[in-house]
């Protein structure tokens, strides 16, 4: 079946919905989503969305930008960071006007809490560069993402945005270097649909399902990235993948950084608050890469809980208040900081619920066992600051193709994303992309209708092969093998030998994938088929991740090489661009944009 729209948006999470709201004001827009949009993983974001509102103590967007650049280990493009942090402020106000139920200060303004890596100057006579945690994260309990997703979906209903739910995009239509739409598989019927559109936005989220332990939903398989990669679009900075320090042990379920923002501390098997050693200034609120490495180091040194592979996240009021007192932590009004059991239950209700449900414990009386969990892709589809996809090192745009959110790489996160900045990225760049799509339409329309012959052929053949007889491999086994090799060799710490092995094994798995067959030959809700197809996406992205990590011979942000432990600004202050070619992954590099924040050593 053929459909025609001005703008097609692939993905119904935060960035897709934000873009839809803005594009739909003047363009005929459809949102395609493989899930019902309210199931999107934006809804799982917990702790907050950063913006220098200054509602709880002085703050400025330039401070937010500095923290973001420092958090990125100076790999973020600073022009994009400046736009994000400046526009974050009025985007948050926009969200409030849409009805988002933020927590409030006593005076009725949007309340803000502390979060990892977000700081403000706190100079002392002998320490002029000293900083302290800033109250910058706007929040709604520990359900901030849920509220953003709900609010944006509500607004889409109000403004009558067209949704095609449970349509899974399986190919991009590219002809003569121009994107002309997408091919989508209708999950309920098994039918392939062709969507012709002068403007297409990819907003498909992340791909954390590449690893064994992840905070990511089953749906996060990098579909948008993979279809773009296969059509000649490079992936940028794929070696940088964030492991969130506090996933529930074994399960990977996210325990928000807000727990530490409210005063929670990480404790090792000896009862030590070990972050004091790794980040003397802001300790447990250091950047995620720093904290995840610290946990790995503690575990490796035998200082996990009972010598095992996890540590404790302790937010018991007695513990928190003791450390508040020891550190002299004060509220913005100058009074000594304190928390009560009621504060924990009120400000972190979902965390308490997860702990109770999955661990049978209460964070008010018990510490939570945590380990780093695969969480967020800093890398992705390269774009300009309006979501237009760039396909080479000089910034050439593929007309008609846009990307926003986790699947994209603007780049505002560089080598390591700060907490709250994923939500900031979604709303700021989702909005910009939606506006740009509408504005660009007149120049895109003339060529859009010229489609290749039988645009769905490639997708049809790929799906038919998975359903054909003769295959001998099972998708679940190949998937588990991929997750194992990525966890063993392409995780928090990396080394050449391991990365080489990973790359070899992933290529073998890609071979095995060609022989996968599925049980379900039906056409309705054939998840067996789609899971297998998604595995192909993950494998292609795993190959790129391992290849880029192998090549980058330095340590920066989330990319920590045992064999190259130092950051190397002389040779490696560059973004990687990875292309899929017949002979494997081809790498190119492009410079980082630096505006006002000169690279310096990164300490917390």
């Amino acid at each position, binding site marked *: 079946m053929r459909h025609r729209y001005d703008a097609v948006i692939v993905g119904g999470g935060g960035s897709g919905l934000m873009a839809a709201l803005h594009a739909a004001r003047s363009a005929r827009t459809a949102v395609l989503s493989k899930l019902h949009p309210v199931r999107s993983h934006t809804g799982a974001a917990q702790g907050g969305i950063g913006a220098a509102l200054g509602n709880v103590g002085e703050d400025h967007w330039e401070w937010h930008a500095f923290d973001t650049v420092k958090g990125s280990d100076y790999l973020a493009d600073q022009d994009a960071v400046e736009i994000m942090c400046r526009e974050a402020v009025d985007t948050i106000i926009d969200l409030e006007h849409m*009805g988002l139920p933020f927590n409030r200060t006593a005076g009725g303004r949007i309340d803000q809490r502390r979060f990892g890596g977000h700081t403000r100057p706190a100079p002392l006579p002998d320490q002029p560069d000293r900083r302290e945690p800033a109250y910058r994260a706007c929040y709604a309990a520990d359900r901030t993402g849920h509220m953003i997703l709900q609010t944006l979906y509500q607004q889409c209903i109000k403004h009558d945005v067209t949704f095609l739910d449970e349509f899974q995009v399986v190919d991009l239509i590219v002809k003569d270097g121009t994107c002309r739409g997408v091919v989508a598989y209708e999950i309920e019927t098994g039918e392939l649909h062709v969507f012709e559109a002068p403007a297409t936005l990819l907003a498909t989220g992340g791909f954390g399902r590449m690893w064994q332990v992840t905070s990511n939903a089953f749906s996060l398989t990098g579909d948008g990235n993979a279809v773009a990669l296969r059509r000649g679009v490079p992936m940028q900075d794929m070696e940088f993948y964030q492991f969130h320090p506090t996933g529930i042990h074994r399960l990977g379920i996210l325990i928000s950084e807000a727990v530490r923002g409210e005063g929670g501390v990480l404790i090792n098997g000896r009862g030590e608050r070990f972050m004091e050693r790794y980040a003397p200034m802001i300790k447990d609120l250091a950047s995620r890469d720093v904290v995840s490495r610290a946990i790995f180091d503690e575990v490796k040194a035998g200082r996990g809980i009972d010598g095992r592979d996890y540590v404790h996240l302790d937010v018991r009021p007695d513990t928190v208040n003791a450390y508040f007192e020891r550190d002299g932590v004060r509220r913005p009004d100058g009074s000594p900081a304190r928390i009560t059991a009621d504060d924990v239950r009120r400000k972190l209700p979902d965390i308490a619920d997860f702990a109770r449900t999955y661990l049978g414990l209460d964070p008010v009386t018990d510490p939570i066992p945590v380990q780093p969990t695969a969480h967020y892709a800093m890398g992705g589809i390269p774009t300009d600051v309006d979501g237009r996809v760039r396909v080479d090192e000089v910034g050439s745009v593929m007309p008609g193709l846009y990307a926003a959110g986790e699947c994209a790489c603007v780049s505002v996160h560089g080598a390591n994303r700060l907490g709250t900045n994923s939500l900031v990225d979604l709303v700021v760049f989702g909005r910009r992309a939606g506006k740009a799509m509408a504005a660009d339409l007149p120049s895109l329309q003339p060529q859009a209708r010229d489609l290749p012959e039988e645009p769905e052929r490639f997708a049809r053949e790929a799906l038919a092969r998975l359903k054909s007889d003769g295959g001998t491999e099972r998708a679940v086994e190949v998937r588990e093998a991929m997750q194992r090799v990525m966890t063993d060799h392409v995780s928090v710490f990396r080394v050449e030998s391991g990365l080489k092995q990973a790359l070899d094994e992933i290529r073998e798995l890609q071979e095995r994938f060609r022989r996968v067959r599925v049980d379900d030959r039906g056409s309705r809700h054939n998840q067996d088929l789609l899971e297998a197809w998604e595995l192909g996406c993950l494998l292609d992205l795993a190959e790129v991740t391992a290849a880029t990590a192998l090549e980058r011979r330095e340590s920066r942000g989330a990319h920590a090489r045992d064999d190259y432990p130092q950051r190397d600004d002389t040779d490696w202050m560059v973004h990687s661009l990875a292309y899929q070619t017949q002979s494997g992954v081809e790498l190119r590099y492009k410079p980082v944009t630096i505006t006002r924040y000169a690279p310096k050593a990164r300490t917390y």
Partner: protein
Amino acid sequence: MEVHVRIRRFDPDRAGGAYWADYAVDAEPGDTVLSVLNAVKWQHDGTLALRRSCNHGVCGSDALAINGRNRLACKTLLRDVGPRVTVAPIAGLRVVKDLIVDMRPFFAQYRAVKPYLIAPDAPPGRERLQSPEQRERYDDTTKCILCAACTTSCPSYWSNDRFIGPAAIVQAHRFLFDSRDRGAAERLGTLDAVTGVWRCRTVFNCTEACPRDIEVTRRIGEVKRAIVSGSID
């Protein structure tokens, strides 16, 4: 431990209608029912169809009737339901395949209550002010994840599927009690109709079913009282 799971299966393209199928899988008491269903799918029968995404109770995809009670499969641990588990689709919506139901009527009822902030006045340059007490007034109903566990556990809904159901009323409550909202009159037509709140007979199934611990029946009561007292008009 060995878990015996009995699953309601249905393939619209095969003759014979719905049937029960039994499977045995190895699992730990701390594992979820969803992990058991995944094990069935990945080890025994790839054709099993169910919706699931976030895997920790926040996306609302996997509301199922588990041992006769509506729950999220990813939030239900084996230690709480025992080694014999029966899983069926939520009741009252058309079954499309296996554990998947047609959610369109549910979302149509959700849309009918105008589930968005209605505030016609031009907003101020900064955020609107709202006190913590005003924010607290509707906090409970902001938690809804639209999983349909409440609506599909409601006998009034089973007997008349034109009843908008608990979930839609929860969504209406979220806005009716938001100090910023001015849309009460616009929603009254839906809420005060014969298919509106008065179909609720306070059976409390919805409250029991809610995986987000929303006091659904209580909130429906608040909406009823607001209509009677005319405090929403």
